[in-house]
């Protein structure tokens, strides 16, 4: 094995200019809420960083996260950083297969004990679920995860499945899927949610880890605050239409054509915290709302079960209409019965009516 190159060397080899690199470092600084003057320091640190060992575990997932992170139309600093980490195990990307692949994982764990990062995409059947729902090389996901994180410095749960359980955990959750953070309790877990997540978020986390050896500040869901601190709604360029009450009601009405707010078409922007509205996708080309499509809320926990992608955020989940009708029918019947009882009581009272007469009144005087 050749001596590992520094990140700087690797970038230069790939023809990334100093200028482009500094631009990336400035973005990283801003994401970490550091002053822009820190960008050169970050650049310096990054240039000298050794390739950290990363073990990438793919469990119950669709490979969408890997696609998002690796496939860019042109090489960017982000995916180059991604390229230059020592991705010692990633069974979608690695050439090795079978025992050889597993062997690579064990080797990396052994060689970098205490220092390596574990990236997980996909949820996994929990310890009480049937492990047979997802295995790799005959090893259950649960077993593999617990074994792999043993010597890890930190765990990055990439994508909403790894972070929050995602689609596998959606109702009725047949495989008993759980999220990484449900199982990993003694290592830092960074959730990079999204379905898929914004690529820059993962590289940003990696950049910080490489630069400062620290992990980013997290929100209550364990997500890097720098990316998940603001809602889509608050940064949405269509927000003025919401504020004015101008809504598209179908995907092809005048409102939709005029770029009005997509709330009524099910946009979950108000409850969704992610960086799509600012960082956009595909090298900043566009993002779902800009493409005329409502935000699905994919970076939030349980977004699959949050009531339907095309139903407005305010629409209740389940069948309250049926509950209403059923209860109303029952109530009407019970009310009529109760009323009949009361009516009967009044009738009884009439039966027991004891006529008032002048004689007894006179006796009162």
């Amino acid at each position, binding site marked *: 094995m050749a001596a590992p190159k520094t990140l700087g060397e690797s970038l230069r080899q790939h023809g990334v200019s100093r200028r482009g690199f500094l631009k990336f470092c400035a973005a990283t600084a801003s994401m970490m809420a550091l002053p822009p003057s820190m960008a050169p320091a970050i650049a310096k640190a990054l240039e000298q960083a050794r390739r950290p060992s990363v073990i990438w575990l793919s469990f119950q997932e669709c490979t969408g996260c890997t696609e998002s992170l690796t496939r860019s139309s042109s090489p960017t600093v982000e995916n180059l950083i991604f390229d230059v980490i020592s991705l010692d195990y990633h069974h979608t990307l690695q050439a090795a297969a079978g025992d050889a692949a597993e062997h690579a994982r064990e080797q990396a764990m052994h060689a970098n004990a205490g220092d390596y990062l574990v990236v997980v995409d996909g949820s996994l059947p929990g310890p009480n679920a049937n492990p047979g729902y997802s295995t790799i090389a005959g090893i259950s996901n649960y077993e593999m995860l617990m074994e792999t994180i043993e010597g890890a410095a930190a765990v990055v749960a990439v994508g909403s499945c790894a972070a929050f359980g995602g689609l596998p955990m959606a109702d009725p959750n047949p495989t008993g899927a759980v999220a990484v953070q449900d199982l990993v309790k003694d290592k830092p877990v960074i959730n990079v949610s999204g379905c898929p997540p914004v690529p820059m978020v993962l590289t940003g986390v990696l950049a910080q880890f490489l630069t400062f050896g620290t992990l980013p500040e997290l929100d209550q869901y364990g997500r890097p605050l720098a990316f998940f601190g603001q809602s889509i709604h608050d940064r949405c360029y269509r927000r003025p239409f919401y504020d004015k009450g101008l809504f598209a009601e179908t995907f092809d009405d005048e409102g939709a054509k005029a770029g009005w707010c997509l709330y009524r078409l099910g946009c979950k922007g108000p409850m969704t915290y992610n960086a799509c509205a600012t960082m956009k996708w595909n090298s900043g080309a566009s993002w779902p709302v800009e493409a005329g499509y409502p935000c699905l809320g994919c970076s939030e926990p349980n977004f699959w079960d949050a009531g339907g992608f095309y139903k*407005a955020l305010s629409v209740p989940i389940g069948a309250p209409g049926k509950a209403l009708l059923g209860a109303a029918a029952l109530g009407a019947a019970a009310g009529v019965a109760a009323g009949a009882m009361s009516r009967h009581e009044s009738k009884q009272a009439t039966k027991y009516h004891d006529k008032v007469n002048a004689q007894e009144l006179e006796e009162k005087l």
Partner: protein
Amino acid sequence: MTPMDFLLLTKGPLFSVAIAIFALGILIRLAEILTLGRAKNYAAARGNEVIPGLKTVYRRFNPDPGTFKRSPFDVIVGTLWHVGFVVALLLFIPHVELIKSTLGIGWPGLPNPVVDAVTAITLLGLIAALIHRLTQPVKRFLSTKEDYLIWAVTFLPVLTGYLAYHRLINPYPLALGLHILSAEVFLIVLPFTKLTHIFTAFVARYYNGAIFGRKGIQS
């Protein structure tokens, strides 16, 4: 429980439970009132019952000039916040969507800034109404714990709605969840308190109008 779990709970099972309790309760109340019936009236009628009954249902929205003169505060503030509450409830676009999805019927809503202003007025109106209840001698004399309870139960959904809209509680799923929860409390409490007047007042007005109407007076 994460804010999202909380939101999904309030949007999901709790909402169904609340709306079921509401429907069950209010229909019991209405049915047990109507089933009681009225004794046959043997007196020759001077006027019709049905039309004056329906007219009174409408007329009691506008008080007579004397009442307005003697109790302008009640009339203005009472009308203001009642109308505001109903406008915010029925004409805010997210609420329209909710109703459409639950009942299958929808109508056009008002622009958000309008509802926002109306909500602010409603909040102020409700606060003013509470102060009035605490200070005006008749109101203070009549008021029971229940009156203050229903004030709170009415105030909270408006307040949380306002806070959620302005994103003054974070994260948003918590804000929205609190708003929905307070609305559910309102729905659940409604049939068991004098909030029933939301429905029974129409019955009461009808009977009032019918009783007077029979005697030839539009009440």
